[in-house]
């Protein structure tokens, strides 16, 4: 099927301003948007820059905005966004600086990720455990969804609060924070929650749900954030039994 890709280009070596450029490609019915983009890069314009790797929604590289919606290019079928051929608008992820064409600078994303102490903090002063740490199966399954995050940046791009406030930690970092805060092996909750309870942490989320709806791995950052808010409030009110 014939499909026209209207791509937001940005080539800083030749021009200061971004611009749209359209390419027409003929792709199979089963093609993904990533397939179409690679078709453009391989046969029509070798200067088109984009990130892609696994083609199977696990590496998190190909996050971009397709017809205004943040999603993974490899997971988006052309027929879903352009049922009878036609035009697809492709732009880089929002809320992040753009390095070139469809390549976003993920540095702010990673910086916020690091700020939530995204690892298990060990119990330095405690006794050495005599056996492995046990975790209830239900809890492990619950944490699984937050561990499934592939750091693709789609949720970050979808969030309107991130759009209006650069400093907001964002859904991905906060979801990761829950993954560790809920883990019984973790002893770093206090320092982590202290960071989250700051002004541009949890409180900026207004349960808009764009992140949860767009996540390609069905992580639910809104749920994570609401659970974290509850944790902070209960602790502060002394209601945690």
């Amino acid at each position: 099927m014939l499909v026209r890709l209207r791509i937001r280009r940005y080539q800083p070596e030749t021009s200061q301003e971004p611009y749209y450029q359209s390419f027409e490609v003929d792709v199979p019915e089963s093609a993904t948007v990533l397939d179409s983009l690679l078709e453009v890069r391989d046969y029509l314009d070798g200067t088109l820059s984009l990130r892609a790797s696994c083609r199977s929604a696990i590496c998190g590289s190909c996050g971009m905005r397709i017809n205004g919606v943040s999603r993974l290019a490899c997971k988006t079928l052309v027929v879903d966004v352009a049922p009878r051929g036609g035009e697809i608008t492709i732009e880089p992820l929002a809320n992040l600086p753009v390095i070139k064409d469809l390549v976003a600078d993920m540095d702010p994303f990673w910086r916020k990720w690091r700020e939530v102490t995204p690892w298990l903090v060990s119990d330095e002063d405690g006794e050495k455990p005599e056996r492995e740490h046990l975790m209830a199966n239900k809890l492990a399954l619950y944490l699984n969804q937050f561990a499934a995050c592939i750091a693709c940046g789609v949720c970050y791009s979808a969030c309107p609060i991130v759009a209006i406030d650069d400093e907001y930690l964002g859904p991905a970092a906060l979801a990761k924070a829950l993954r560790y805060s809920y883990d019984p092996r973790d002893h770093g909750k206090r320092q982590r929650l202290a960071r989250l309870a700051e002004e541009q942490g949890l409180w900026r989320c207004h349960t808009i749900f764009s992140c949860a709806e767009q996540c390609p791995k069905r992580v639910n950052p809104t749920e994570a954030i609401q659970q974290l808010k509850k944790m902070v409030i209960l602790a502060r009110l002394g209601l945690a039994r």
Partner: protein
Amino acid sequence: MAQVELEEKVREAPTPVAGPSFWPWLLQRVTGGALLILLTLHIVVNHIFNIAEVEDDILPGLVVFSDVADRFETPAYWIIAVLLLSFALFHGLNGIRNILLDYGVRGTGEKVATGALLGVGLAAFTFGVIALAAFIA
């Protein structure tokens, strides 16, 4: 399920952490919930139960001075009025403050904005109480 682990985990944090946004956040919800009741009472009492005597050129539900003055003879009504005034002002102005925070107003800007909103709130509250008192003067 996760509730059990939640409580264990929270117990581990000896000193609560909450940041400067804790009370405004919580009070926004508390005042909001209270306003549900207070506002409903306010609208119903003023415009629905108000149909005492319908005079020739006064529409039922229209607020007249004497009716309001009568209501203020009950102390309970005073309490509700003051609660309503303070909660509504807090909820609304704190809401505005939240919008500013969302747009990244921080540091000095935030202090100035909070101060200004606080000023407006106190002024409006004072004026409101004076206005209410005028009904029984």
